[in-house]
């Protein structure tokens, strides 16, 4: 019991002195995770779409060559960034840029470097998720879209991708939560995230365990709130589970009579009469 009281008082001491730095660390972590997940999703969607452009046996060899080339490039990107540790990628890029340009160019801010590294890392994972999401949509949806004359791009943007996005929402959530935690490796390039606040605090106070407790609680509350919000978002995307029957539709008059955009209504005189008015309504014309 005493030891717990001790812990609480230590945490109190830490918070009094380093509270602001913990909070600003949390803010940086959340912003980095959010921005990088969003950019990573965009990268993932672009790669996933490029990877699933279909080619028919009858297509020209040039088209086939380019499509294959794109697939190889995406494949290399995915394998390289999925297959190496993010902490190493951060060091590699952050110090690689000045090394290759003899110090002429370097990252202006650690923010740019951190966002770049986490984004392309997330993108590598998302590329595969998006590809899976696209494959998981029933091929009948593509056929339905093609049958009404949609092009490949229209089919993708209006029919397939919205459904793929819904299917991979849990994956996007996964990536976001992983990013909240894994951005902690960005301390390596001096990014001021939540975990670096811990390092700064224990450097002078030596209260290792109490500070780690603060970190644990902090990370857990961020991820719990995130997963709660993600569930809510998924439900919202599904839309309401019931629908309203439209009993009186503004466009439909009595059963069997329609207001045709060109031919007008069967009540032609009334039609003409109403043409001049601003608010043309088919209701209550009788």
């Amino acid at each position, binding site marked *: 019991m005493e030891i717990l009281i001790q812990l609480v008082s230590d945490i109190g001491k830490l918070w009094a002195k380093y509270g602001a730095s913990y909070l600003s660390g949390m803010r940086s972590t959340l912003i980095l995770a959010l921005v990088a997940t969003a950019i990573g999703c965009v990268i993932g969607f672009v790669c996933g779409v490029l990877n699933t452009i279909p080619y028919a046996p009858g297509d020209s060899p040039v088209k086939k060559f380019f499509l294959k080339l794109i697939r190889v490039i995406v494949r290399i990107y995915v394998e390289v960034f999925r297959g190496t540790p993010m902490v190493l990628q951060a060091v590699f890029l952050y110090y690689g840029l000045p090394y290759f340009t003899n110090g002429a160019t370097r990252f202006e801010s650690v923010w740019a470097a951190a966002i770049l590294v986490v984004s392309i890392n997330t993108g590598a994972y998302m590329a595969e998720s998006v590809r899976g999401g696209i494959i998981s949509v029933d091929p*009948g949806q593509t056929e339905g879209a093609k*049958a009404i004359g949609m092009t490949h791009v229209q089919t993708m943007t209006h029919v397939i991708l919205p459904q793929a996005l819904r299917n991979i929402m849990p994956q996007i959530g996964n990536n976001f939560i992983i990013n909240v935690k894994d951005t902690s490796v960005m301390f390596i390039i001096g990014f001021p995230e939540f975990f670096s606040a811990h390092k700064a605090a224990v450097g002078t106070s030596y209260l290792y365990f109490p500070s780690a407790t603060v970190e644990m609680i902090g990370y857990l509350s961020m991820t719990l709130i995130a997963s709660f919000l993600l569930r809510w978002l998924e439900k919202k995307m599904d839309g309401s589970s019931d629908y309203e029957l439209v009993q009186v539709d503004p466009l439909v008059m009595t059963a069997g009579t329609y207001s045709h955009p060109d031919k007008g209504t069967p009540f032609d005189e009334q039609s003409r009469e109403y043409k001049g008015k601003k608010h043309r309504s088919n209701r209550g014309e009788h």
Partner: protein
Amino acid sequence: MDQAILQVNHLSKSFGTHEVLRDIDFTVKKGDVTSVIGASGSGKSTLLRCINLLETPSSGEILYHGKNVVGRGVNQPEYRSHVGMVFQSFNLFNNMTVLENCVVGQVQVLKRDKESARKTAMEYLEKVGMAPYIHAKPRQISGGQKQRVAIARALALDPEVLLFDEPTSALDPEMVGEVLGVMQRLAQEGMTMLVVTHEMAFARDVSNHVVYMNQGVICEEGAPKDLFGAPQKQQTKDFLARFRQN
């Protein structure tokens, strides 16, 4: 009235070494209601999918108003927008409401403005009796209702000919009637239709031309009263006899 919309010449289709269609010839004229009947696996659906270019024919040509649409350099989406298709499995867009399903093609493909697209969609949804359900998602309505929406979606693009790929085969028996009723009304209004079906009563009573397919070839074709009343070929007789027993 005697104008040919679609003309299929020497059409063949193979999947690997398996020849599904062999040297098919036939014509769809304006106002025709053609039923394609035959046993499962006889190539009926493949023929329809070839006509809509969802399958690429191995050889032969499909003339749309005299212009070949098979091969490179053809604007496939443009052609498809003139040739509506209704699928066995409905294929309504699951991410859209009933109304959006019927609007999206008009706006994206025909570049109509949203308001007139909505009006046209409502007109056809009313026609198939689905106007009260415009806010429902496809997963919330029954199979028969889905198929009626699919018909409205195809009609909304004002196609010249409508292809039906076994439109009632995936439906419960009590829902078949509502879909066939809609199709019958369309036929009476002069819509050009090409229907792959197992509904013999529909083929006999509604269509004015029946094509019997057997093992990838057109075995016999003619007016329904001739084909059903006095079939010439032995295979046709056997096929129809099997159906009468059921």
